[in-house]
């Protein structure tokens, strides 16, 4: 069916196998293809702009779609004509950020984009410099220019209170602009990318192909292992490397340990946001066992450093296996007990029920992933749709809730933790013997690879083009938060200001993966205080 759509629109199929379709679509047909794919239930995963002057004729963009029904990813390549490509944002809302990113980083113009503004680069970055172009040195630091003042609606009754970028609720720099009326939010905007560290450029210039797993791990300090896994899978896909069975099981084990630690961390943070400190302490006490477990298995609490292309670096012996078993069993009982009791606390439930609702239709349009999507009734999980590591041979359920509020996202994650315990038990039971790494491989030149994993926050997509001499030509990781953040305005509007932190928290935002809240009082004729009010918070960071 997908092939039919592609063929109908003069697409040239470059590669087609059971998990990936790579095609090239003419410039003018792009919008049509995107529209038809979207209506054929393929949702938008990400878009990657590439400076292809080193390998072919110029600049191109790769739009990546995920077809859950057929279990395939569809990569659509389009060359830019005079640096211009028609925008698909009017057709698919989810492409908005990806196109703006390509605008910033590569300098491709998108015809018909509704808001062609800068997304990633800082305000003081000079115009016309695009860091991901091949002629831009990775370590060049251009002098700052005076930022263009953003055009703001001047309303004497409008009061802006930025929450962030350093807001104690999230421990990460991020920035939302909330326009409030009394305590009710009427409009919400996001601005951010404080954590842009230039890692894609770093990967294609200074690093070699086997160093990048360690860079990928540092995309995010919470879900780093799934990033390095996705990267290795992308290379393994591009170079057709067979990974030993045992390595796949070890990866699965660590991925699940990471999911448990991440979800428990998140529960603690949500309880903290709701003012329930003891809940934070309880969940983090359980989590500590998993941190120690990771330390025993990998040598570090958080950055596991286990992945290399072709396998993993450390094996798991019997004594370690027993330790994992013991901790999992104890923690399982602990988690269930604490959650059953917490869910009986009325004031916590009141703060989560019917708060921050994300309806299924909007969720699909934006292309949200992971527990955020599953809380809104979308049954999506990379582990089932595109099995990787050892998930194809394991048995587990994917919890889906329909209400789409904060509570449903909490419940989805809670059930996922229980499923993860079950997966770990299976992995340890079935752990095969044999090699843990396959080092016999040759990396072809300019091969395209795609790796996807289900991170604790949702789908991770890594897109990769290889190059000779153990280098990568282009590597683009897409973290789940990148897809989930645009859904926040929908959740925030109409809610109370006091609920904003927990709503923002409920998608488990990971701004380093992908960043500030302004509150603007829009109620007319009510000036609560006088003076230039934004300055107060701004003085220490707005």
């Amino acid at each position, binding site marked *: 069916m997908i092939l039919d759509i592609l063929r109908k629109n003069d697409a040239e199929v470059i590669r087609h196998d059971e998990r990936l379709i790579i095609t090239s679509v003419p410039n003018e047909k792009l919008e049509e293809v995107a529209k038809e794919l979207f209506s054929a239930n393929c949702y938008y995963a990400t878009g990657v702009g590439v400076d292809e002057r080193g390998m072919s004729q110029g600049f191109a963009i790769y739009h990546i779609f995920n077809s859950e029904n057929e279990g395939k990813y569809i990569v659509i390549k389009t060359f830019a004509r005079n640096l211009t490509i028609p925008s698909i944002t009017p057709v698919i809302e989810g492409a908005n950020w990806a196109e703006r990113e390509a605008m910033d980083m590569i300098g491709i113009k998108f015809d018909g984009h509704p808001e062609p503004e800068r997304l990633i680069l800082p305000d003081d*970055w000079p115009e016309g410099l695009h860091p991901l172009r091949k002629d831009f040195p990775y370590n060049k630091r251009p002098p700052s220019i005076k930022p263009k003042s953003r055009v703001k609606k001047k309303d004497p009754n409008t009061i802006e209170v930025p929450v962030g970028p350093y807001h104690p609720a999230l*421990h990460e*720099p991020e920035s939302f602009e909330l326009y409030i009326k009394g305590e009710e939010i009427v409009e919400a905007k996001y601005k951010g990318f404080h954590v842009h560290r230039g890692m894609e450029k770093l990967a294609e210039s200074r690093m070699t192909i086997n160093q990048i797993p360690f860079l990928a791990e540092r995309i995010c300090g919470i879900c780093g292992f799934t990033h390095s896994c996705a990267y290795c899978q992308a290379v393994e896909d591009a170079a057709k490397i067979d990974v030993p069975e045992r390595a796949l099981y070890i990866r699965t084990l660590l991925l699940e340990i990471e999911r448990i630690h991440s979800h428990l961390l998140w529960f603690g943070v949500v309880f903290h946001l709701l003012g329930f400190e003891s809940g934070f*302490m309880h969940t983090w*006490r359980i989590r500590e066992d998993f941190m120690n477990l990771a330390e025993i298995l990998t040598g570090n609490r958080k950055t596991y450093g286990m992945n290399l292309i072709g396998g993993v670096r450390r094996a798991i012996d019997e004594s370690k296996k027993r330790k994992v078993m013991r901790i999992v069993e104890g923690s399982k009982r602990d988690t269930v007990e604490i959650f059953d009791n917490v869910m009986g606390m009325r004031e916590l439930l009141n703060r989560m029920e019917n708060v921050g609702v994300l309806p299924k239709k909007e969720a699909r349009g934006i292309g949200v992933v992971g527990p955020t999507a599953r809380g809104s009734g979308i049954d999506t999980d990379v582990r089932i749709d595109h099995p990787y590591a050892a998930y194809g041979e394991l048995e587990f359920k994917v919890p889906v809730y329909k209400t789409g509020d904060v509570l449903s996202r909490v419940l989805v994650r809670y059930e996922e933790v229980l499923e993860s315990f079950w997966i770990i038990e299976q992995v340890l039971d079935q752990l095969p013997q044999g090699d843990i790494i396959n080092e016999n491989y040759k990396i072809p030149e300019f091969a395209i690879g795609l790796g996807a994993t289900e991170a604790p926050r949702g789908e991770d997509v890594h897109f990769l083009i290889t190059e000779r001499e153990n280098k990568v030509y282009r590597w683009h990781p897409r973290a789940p938060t990148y897809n989930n953040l645009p859904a926040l305005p929908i959740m925030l509007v109409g809610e109370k200001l006091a609920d904003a932190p927990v709503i923002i928290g409920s998608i488990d935002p990971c701004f380093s993966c992908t960043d500030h809240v302004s509150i603007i009082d829009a109620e007319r004729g009510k000036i609560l205080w006088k003076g230039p009010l934004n300055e107060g918070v701004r*003085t220490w960071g707005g």
Partner: protein
Amino acid sequence: MFEKSLWVFHLNSGSCNGCDIEVLNIFAPRQDVERFGIKLVGSPRHADAIAFTGPITRESLPKAVEALKAVPEPKLLLAIGSCACGGGIWYDTYAVIGGVKEFYKILKEEYNIEPPTTIYIPGCPPKPEAIIYGVALARKAVKQKQKKEIYIEELNEDMRREIAEILFSEAKGTRHFLPNIVVKTKEGEESES
């Protein structure tokens, strides 16, 4: 002044979250630094110390400067993690400043601010205990273990050459081939041809 009570403002200057969660982790029951009177505060005005995690990205630089200015003197700066100490894995990319040392340079040149007392806590991320050790070090409760180490090979060139030549000539004289001959390096291949 901070022996009994230290309030910390945590500032993520572009970290990957690894250090952030370890900073949060020291408040969890296992490590519980509240027992030393350490508290995380939400406003830099209340803080005695400011904890940087991350290599200080270009976007967060002005905010980091503002936050640092808002902390009353005397203050302490905790550079937590390798990124804050020296830039970490991204020390020289276009988007980051590259650790507190470079940050101090900018502070000095552009804002004319003297750098505060700094504690460097490397690690990727540092274990929670390593952070506790760092704070204890600031209070002089523990001894510093990490020292700069310089090793300079003492043998002079002639002596080395002598040793080497004896080694070679002996091998030559006996005409004995050493077992396990593996030619590994490029130089070896060249000399083979």
